[in-house]
Structures are given as structure tokens and as C-alpha cells.
């Protein structure tokens, strides 16, 4: 029983360490290799859907640029975790201040989820980028390039990461199974691809969870998804529709407490349930729920209290359920 490797998350374990190991986004990888060769690069912006290799490419680029010791010259930040631009500024300042060894041309700051920053914060970021341009380069990572303000875009070389092809994802999953000596079935892998929506990191996570059930079969894959997204949410919806309002609300509370879910988390799960075949309600109803979830989510954004807003949603659904029943 070897512990050193098996305890790792595969998404981490099988993340390419070097640009040479990357199997997708060939064009981009080629251009990045040029940077390594020339030991120079501009600020760059990696944009594209989740799980298409943006972070991997950034880390691999740093690795190739600086060798095994790369972590010393790289500052990883995540815009949605850092409290405000001031914190980011300080961290970058601190990081930029430390001396560079002679042969290192500059340090790299990787700023993930940069599109989650407000326009104001991005303006400040832009100034930070300019301030330290002599000693640092920024790699900005974003899902949506359009959410990055123009002045930053025009200062960066932009790279668009595209959705991975199904065959690429499946091949990668299969390769991992071989490495891990896990039995997998083609339809199992395809199911994973479908569920992950092309997000490779997500796909590998599901793969690992399915493998932990023994083999990667379709049924195991779905079992994992079922375990990951508990039936509770569905039951709450069903209760609400059966106009068992108080019961639904009690279950909602249980859910929030047991899993520590926030209002937004729960709404997202409800949103997912709308499209699930396991929820047995007429399609018309689904549409109505989708509309209502939109409204309530907006209220959450405006309001202060998760539970009140979700309870109001359950009340709405209960009333709808009652109306439906009285019709039929």
C-alpha cells in the first residue's frame, strides 16, 4: 500500500508539469515555448472556459522558465479569494521587492479569476502592473475576456483557450486509468465527458471518484454524481410542489446546516435539478421554476438573508403546486 501517491487528487497528480507535457492547446503551447526560449515575455491574458488548461499552462510556463526551483519566482493569487485590491497590491509589492538572481530576467505573478474583479479594482490592477513592469510579468487568467477592461487587455498578449474536444478528454481519462490501473469502460468515460461539460479538471475529479467505487462504469459515474449532488434538494422541491411547505422549509434548513451550504449554493443546485430527469414534474413547471429561481437569486444579490429569500421561494413553489393540483 503505497501512500505517497495514492492520497493525491488525480487532477493534481496528472497535471502536466512542463509545457512539453501539455497535450492540448497546441498553438498556445508553441507560442509560450517561444517565451521560454527567449527568456522574455509580455504580460499575458489567458481566457477561456474552466478546465481548458489555463492554470496548468501558467504553472508549466513558470516551471519551464525557472526550472525545478520555480516556486521561488512565482506568486500565485486568486482574485476571488483575496480581500480587495489593497491586499493584492501589498502582496505583489512584497513579492516584487525581493532581489532577483542575476540570470532570472523577471518574476511572474499569476492572477487567477481576474474577471471576478470589479472595473475599479481592475483599474488599480493596471496601475500595479505598470508599476512593477521592470521586475515582474503578470499572467492574468479569466473565464471571460470581455470582463477584463480594455486598458488591461491592450497591455497584454491575449491567449484564447478553447474547449477541449471530446476525444481529447476521453483519451486523457483513459490514459490516467491506465496509469492508475483502474478498469474503465468507454461509455463510462463518455458519460464523464458529458457531465463535466468539457471541463477536464472536473472530468478527472469525477473519474477518480468513480474509480474509488471500483470500476469506471456508467452506473458508477452516475452514482458518483448522485452522491455529489444529494437528493435532498430534489426532495425539497418535491415537497414544495406537494404544498408541504413547512416540511420543505425544515428540510431546507437541515440541508443548509448539514452541508454548510449558502443560499447561492442551494439555488445553483436547484437550478441543476430543473434539468434533471429525476425530478418528476411537468416541463411547464420547470420553466416556471427557472424563472422564479432567477428572480430569487437576484434578490439574494440585493438582500441580506439567505434563508428568508429561499423560504419565500419555497412559498411560491408551494402555491404553484397547489394551483397545479387543483387544475388537474
Amino acid at each position, binding site marked *: *500500500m503505497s*501512500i*505517497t501517491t*495514492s*492520497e493525491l*487528487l488525480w*487532477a*493534481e497528480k496528472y497535471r502536466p508539469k512542463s509545457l512539453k507535457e501539455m497535450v492540448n492547446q497546441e498553438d498556445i503551447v508553441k507560442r509560450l515555448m517561444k517565451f521560454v526560449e527567449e527568456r522574455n515575455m509580455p504580460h499575458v491574458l489567458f481566457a477561456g472556459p*474552466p478546465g481548458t488548461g489555463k*492554470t496548468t499552462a501558467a*504553472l508549466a510556463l513558470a516551471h519551464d522558465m525557472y526550472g525545478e526551483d520555480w*516556486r521561488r519566482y512565482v506568486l*500565485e493569487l*486568486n*482574485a*476571488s*479569494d483575496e480581500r480587495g485590491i489593497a491586499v493584492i497590491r501589498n502582496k505583489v509589492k512584497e513579492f516584487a521587492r525581493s532581489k532577483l538572481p542575476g540570470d532570472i530576467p523577471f518574476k511572474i505573478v499569476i492572477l*487567477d*479569476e481576474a474577471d471576478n474583479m470589479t472595473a475599479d479594482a481592475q483599474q488599480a490592477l493596471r496601475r500595479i502592473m505598470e508599476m512593477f513592469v521592470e521586475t515582474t510579468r503578470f499572467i492574468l487568467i479569466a473565464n471571460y475576456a470581455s470582463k477584463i477592461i480594455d486598458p488591461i487587455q491592450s497591455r497584454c498578449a491575449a491567449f484564447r483557450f478553447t474547449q477541449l474536444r471530446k476525444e481529447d478528454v476521453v483519451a486523457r481519462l483513459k490514459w490516467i486509468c491506465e496509469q492508475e490501473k483502474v478498469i474503465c469502460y468507454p461509455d463510462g468515460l463518455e458519460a464523464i465527458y458529458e457531465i463535466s461539460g468539457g471541463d477536464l*479538471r*472536473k472530468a478527472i*475529479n*469525477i473519474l*477518480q*471518484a468513480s474509480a*474509488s*467505487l471500483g470500476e469506471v462504469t456508467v452506473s458508477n459515474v452516475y*452514482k*458518483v454524481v448522485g*452522491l*455529489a*449532488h444529494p437528493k435532498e434538494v430534489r426532495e425539497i422541491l418535491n415537497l414544495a410542489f406537494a*404544498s408541504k*411547505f*413547512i416540511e420543505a*422549509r425544515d428540510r431546507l*434548513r437541515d440541508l*443548509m*446546516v*448539514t*452541508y*454548510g451550504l*449558502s443560499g447561492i*449554493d442551494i439555488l*445553483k443546485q436547484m437550478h441543476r435539478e430543473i434539468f434533471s430527469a429525476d425530478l418528476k414534474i411537468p416541463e411547464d413547471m420547470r420553466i416556471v421554476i427557472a424563472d422564479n429561481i432567477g428572480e430569487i437569486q437576484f*434578490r439574494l444579490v*440585493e*438582500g*441580506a*438573508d439567505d*434563508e*428568508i*429569500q429561499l*423560504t*419565500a421561494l419555497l*412559498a*411560491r413553489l*408551494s*402555491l404553484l403546486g*397547489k394551483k397545479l393540483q387543483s387544475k388537474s
Partner: protein
Amino acid sequence: MSHQLKIPWVIKYRPRKVEDVINQEEAKSKVLEWLKKWPNVTKKALLFYGPPGCGKTSLVEAISNEFGYELLEMNASDFRRKEDIERVAVRASTMQSLFASGKKKLILLDEVDGVANKEDVGGLEAIEHLVKVTKVPIIMTANNPWDQKLRILRDIAEFVQFRKLEKRDLMKLLHRICNAENLHCDEDALDYIVSRAEGDARAAINDLQAVGEGFGEVTLERAKAILRPRDKERDPFETLKLLFSSRYAWQARNALSQSQLDYEQLKLWLEENIPHQYTDMEDVLRAYEALSKSDIYLGRIVKSGDWDLLVYAMDLMTVGVALAAINNPRDKDKWTKYTFPQRISIMSKLKEVRSVREDLATILAKHLHTSASTAKSDVLPILKAMFVSNPEYAAKLAIGLGLSEKMIEILAGTNKQAILDYYRKVEELLEKKASEALAGTKKLKQEMKKEKPETEKGKEKKNTKDLFSFTKKSG
């Protein structure tokens, strides 16, 4: 012109001897016994707690009076920073040695719940230290034993409860003072004063003086005129009843004006009880919509910082909910057994779960180079699936990621024990390996360490500690 020093009655009639302290027999015997044994006691300090005016400080003063202790007092009017406390400690011990034959000493740290967080920085820690090293008995007083500040005193001081005074005893006390002051006292006037005092002797004496001194008598009429009854605040149940039964907007708005509930609490009480009061689903929805809108205003206040918007939140919460019963207006007067908001009781639990989840997400985020929120939404559910379905695998992951017992519990739910069992096995295996080949294990551990993110050192330590305690427990 000569004048005699005038002192308020509370001082004039303060207990001089232990027996003057009324109604606290249990506390008295406890303290006296403890003092007799000192320093052969389990805890070197006592903490007197109880409502104001029940005799905490008085008892200490009476003891020092009667048994000849020299009192070294520090209270909230003194600065109680670290250095201030230390000075007292020094004073107590040095004087003890200098005048070994002199008076016995007693340290009174009065009002320890009044140690200010900012101005008295380090004060409580210094007290903690003082208790550990003291050569002199220490008595502390406080009103609320549950005060967060007092938490660190719980282990080192014995808590002694003081009770509110009984009405009967208070009456006796006031009678005594009336006699001494040559006051004619109407029984009903004293009764009025005593019920107002709610077990607080000091307040009762003050009020008696306010009504009686100089008039030569204490009448109910004057007592009522000067000491107006305390505004009676409606308890939550009365508040809710009044609110739901309101037929006019102004009635509903008034429901909150003399309530024990503030708007934040009322929000929770309403959230809990709307479906109990109203039966028609449309009415229920209307009420919740009003509450939800009210909540939006509260959110907007936070966003814009404009508290003028609060009135609208309160309008919707009161009037909006009260006038929601349109389909079934008879529900308004229905007798309803209101329940305490579940929210309040589950809130702390929720907070704990969320913070563990937060920590878990941070660990995963570092490993996977994502944001904590992505880790929460994408990775946690999958991890949970693994923990629920394959305990052995989960145990390995838990070790690899350095998860705490709490984290495992959140991920595994009822499956927790199975995982912990495997966890132990793996640990034993590790130990075995260690004894087999020390060098090998070293390398292994190093590798494990390398895997862990560097910035998580603090957390890692904590986690290992958690694990350690767990192994001990189950082993």
C-alpha cells in the same frame, strides 16, 4: 458653619459583617470554608457572579472587615493593563513578606467583566498569570458568567453563584432602614419599590431614599409619581400576537415599538411563525413576500450605508406581514403556539460547519490551484462522493490532504467512523514502517511534507494535532 457629612443610604446601610449579607447563605459558607483552607485549595481564586445589587462586593468587604483581611482592590475604574495587574501582584507578595506578622491579605478584582478589550489590553492574561502564582487569596466579581471575556478564567477560578434577593428579604431590609431613618412607610409603597427593584437591594435602597428622604414618610402615591413604572416590554409572544392581529397599519407598526425584539430578531420570529399563524397558502406567500422585500431593504442599507431606508424595511416587516391575511382574515386572531426561531439555535452550528467547509476549500484550492469558491462548488461534492462510498480510499486522501477530524465528518457524514478506523490502520502501518527503516520513513515524511502547500503551515500543524488527539482517543 459646621456641616455633617451626608452619605447615601446604600453606603450607610451597607453590610458590615458577614451575617448582614442576606440571602446568600450557600455562597457565604462556600467562601468562608475556602478561605479557611487557603492555600490548600484546588483553585486559588473565586469568581462571584450574579446580578447587580445582590451583595458580591459587599460580602468581600464584610469578610475583610470581620476577619481582618487587608483588601487590595482593583476595579473597572482602574487601568487594568498587563503592567497594572503585575504591579498589584508584586505589592501583594512583597508586603506579605515584609509584614509577615501583620494583616492577612486578600486581593479583590472587582468587575472583571469590565476589563476593556482595547484599553486594558493583556489584562485578562495577566490576571490568569496572577492566579497561578499568587500567594494571597483572590476573589473576583462579575455579572455575567457567560461573558466571552471570562472564558479563560473558567479553568483557574471556582465560580460562586449569587442569587437575586427574595422579595421577602428585600422587604425586611427596607423596613429596617425605614425604622432607622424614622420614616413612616406604607406597606404598599414598599411593595411597589421592591417589585420594581427586581431583586436588586442597592436599587431598592436608592429608590427608597429618593422617595422618602426629607419627606418623613413613604407613600405609594409619591413612589408612583417619582418612580414611574419601568416600561413594560412585550415579550416575543405578545409581540407576535399583537402584530398578527393588527387590522390597521398603525397598529402593526406599533407592535415593534415596545417589544423586547429588535427588527433583526423580529425578522427571524416572523420567518419561523408565519406558516403557523396563516393557513391559506396565498396569504403565507404574501407574508413571505413582504418579509423578503423587507430583507432586500436591509441588504440595500448594507450596500448603500443609508440607514434612512430602515423604516421601509420595518414597515414591510410589520404592516406587510400583518395585512397579508386577505384570503383567510380569520387566521389573524387564531390562537397560535409560537415557536422560538430554529434559526437562532442552528446558527452557531451552521457557522461552525461553514467555517470547516471554508478551511477545507482553502486546502483544496491550494492543492488544485483554484479559488476557494471553485473548490467548494466543484471539488467538495466529488470528494464527498468518495468519502461516502470508499472509506479506505477516503482515509488515504485524508492523510494526504491533511484533513482534520471535523473535515472528515463533514465529508463522510455517518461514514466517519469507518474512515477513522482505516485512518488509524494506515497510521499504524506508517509507524511500523518507521521502526523497520527509519531512513525510509524520513524520506516518506519528507515527501508528504513536500506535497503539502507551504503557505498552509499553520493549518497543517493544527490538522496534525487534531489527528494526534484522535489517534490517542481511539487507540
